[in-house]
């Protein structure tokens, strides 16, 4: 090749050729689309919610009925027909679903993960893990139905005082629903723990339990914690199952009182469904309260994700 040919070849513009620029533009569009959609939802949620609260509505110069921030966040009655918009009963309902489902899903999920990662033979694991993921694929409406038809009557044989719509069955069914999520993500974290650490444990005469509980679980702690946060975020956002199982009466129950779980209440998501399926008029106070709840829910899950990221970054063990 002559030096001129070489010079020509070296100065060819492959990097910024038209088709390169075009594909780059296409992928940029894909990436931006989801971000734009998310931002649009947040903007909409925020502006509509702003019209609901007295303080922000007056700043925006929006006419109409409003609710004060204090009444919304400290009010203990949610009754749209009488104009009482206290969000606490709904938050309490959501909290009960989170607490109840956590009691079910965290130990069972981690236990499942430990079994799959440390005890099951590779053959058994290759069958169990897909089975677990099928469980995660069951439509949530089926779970709700299952709670109402099977879990509540089963609980009723032990606890005769239980209401037809009750928090216990809602929390249990959401717990079952999120077990695969906890198990799957925790199992991934445990499988990522290098075998060298297991060998170190076994080499010192550790039992399987010593290695699982004392070496693998601590080494995978940040991943396990992430699975908790993601699963509980899912529990917070879960709608269909709790709407069916927990009922639609916005009672203000005490989430740390076990007997409260025998009664029905209305988590935040269920309240939004009720608002949407009732006759709310566009622009009315009830309509705008939908956005206020939505924004509150969003803030809670966002906060949990931020905590999860911080914890993961702080406690992640780096292995070569």
């Amino acid at each position, binding site marked *: 090749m002559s030096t001129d040919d070489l010079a020509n070849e070296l100065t060819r513009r492959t990097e910024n050729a038209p088709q390169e620029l075009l594909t780059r533009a296409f992928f940029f569009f894909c990436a931006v689309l989801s971000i734009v959609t998310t931002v649009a939802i947040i903007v909409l949620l925020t502006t509509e919610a702003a019209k609901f609260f007295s303080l922000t509505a007056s700043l925006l110069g929006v006419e109409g009925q409003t609710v004060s921030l204090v009444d919304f966040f400290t009010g203990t009655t949610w009754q749209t027909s009488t104009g009482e918009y206290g969000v606490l009963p709904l938050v309490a309902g959501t909290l009960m679903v989170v607490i109840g489902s956590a009691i079910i899903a965290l130990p069972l999920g981690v236990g499942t993960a430990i079994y799959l990662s440390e005890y099951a*033979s590779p053959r058994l694991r290759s069958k169990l893990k897909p089975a677990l993921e099928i469980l995660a694929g069951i439509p949530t409406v089926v779970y709700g139905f299952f709670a109402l038809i099977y879990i509540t009557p089963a609980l009723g044989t032990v606890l005769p005082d239980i209401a037809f719509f009750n928090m216990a069955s809602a929390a249990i069914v959401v717990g079952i629903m999120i077990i695969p999520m906890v198990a799957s993500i925790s199992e991934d974290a445990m499988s990522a723990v*290098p075998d*060298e*650490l297991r*060998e*170190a*444990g*076994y*080499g*010192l*005469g*550790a*039992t399987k339990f*010593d290695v699982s509980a*004392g*070496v693998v679980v*601590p*080494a995978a702690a940040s991943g396990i914690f992430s699975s908790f946060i993601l699963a509980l975020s899912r529990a917070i956002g879960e709608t269909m199952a709790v709407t069916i199982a927990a009922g639609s009466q916005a009672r203000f129950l005490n989430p740390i009182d076990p007997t409260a779980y025998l009664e029905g209440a209305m988590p935040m998501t269920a309240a939004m469904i009720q608002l949407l399926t009732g006759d709310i008029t566009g622009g009315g106070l009830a309509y705008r309260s939908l956005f206020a709840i939505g924004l509150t829910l969003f803030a809670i899950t966002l906060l949990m994700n931020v905590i999860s990221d911080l914890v993961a970054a702080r406690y992640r*063990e*780096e292995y070569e």
Partner: protein
Amino acid sequence: MSNEEPTTEARTSAPDRSSATTSVDAGEETSDRAAEPDRTIVEARNIDVWYDEDQALRDVSMEVPEKKVTAMIGPSGCGKSTFLRCINRMNDLVDAARVEGELLLGSKNVYDADVDPIALRRRVGIVFQKPNPFPKSIYDNVAYGLEIQDVEGGHDAIVERSLERAALWEEVEDRLEESGLELSGGQQQRLCIARAIATDPEVLLMDEPASALDPIATNQIEDLIEDLAEEYTVIIVTHNMQQAARISDKTAVFLTGGELVEFDDTRQVFESPQSQRVEDYITGKFG
């Protein structure tokens, strides 16, 4: 080559030991230890190991003397690590592995049905190729063996003594609560040695303990191994022949196919090997 030859050599080496050691020059650094009478602590009798259908070790017999450094050398895939992992039954963790023959620790065959591999591993420590401290504090790393064995009382004194014996104490005494992962590679490996000796095992197995380390750290580990042999029986796998020659009292040469071809005093093996194959391997003609 038949399977008979290597084992015959390995067996005959034991009675020959006294004559072999007297032939060692007086100035040889191993001579002070070699003067004591040897007691056998680990004895392999006709060990065969298979991984599924592949035979990894063929009819290996050898007697490992107590409180000496015994090196096992050989090319990759010759079965030397497999043999090491037979001694503390780490091979049990590999589903495909099958071991036949007898392996005596003291007078007990560790493959007897009534032997608990967990109890065995508490008496036979192991240090691996890659330093593998737990993601725990330096202190907790060393105390781990004591914790799982429910050793009574405070562990402070044992932790300190183990770190001292592993020549790491002075470097870490002010930061015992820091993570073991904060240490350099060589320090991590010495931490792993401290962890392995904290429970005072009968035998310390080392699977290429310096192969992931730089030359300075390798030197430190080699010095340490020679010191440890005053109190422990050390069995070390290495692919580094110079290392075996430097630190070991006895050397076992495994060659491809899982045969133990020669086992004798280190000096004997390196200066006048009995087998042509071993000589070829040591002089670099093959392997």
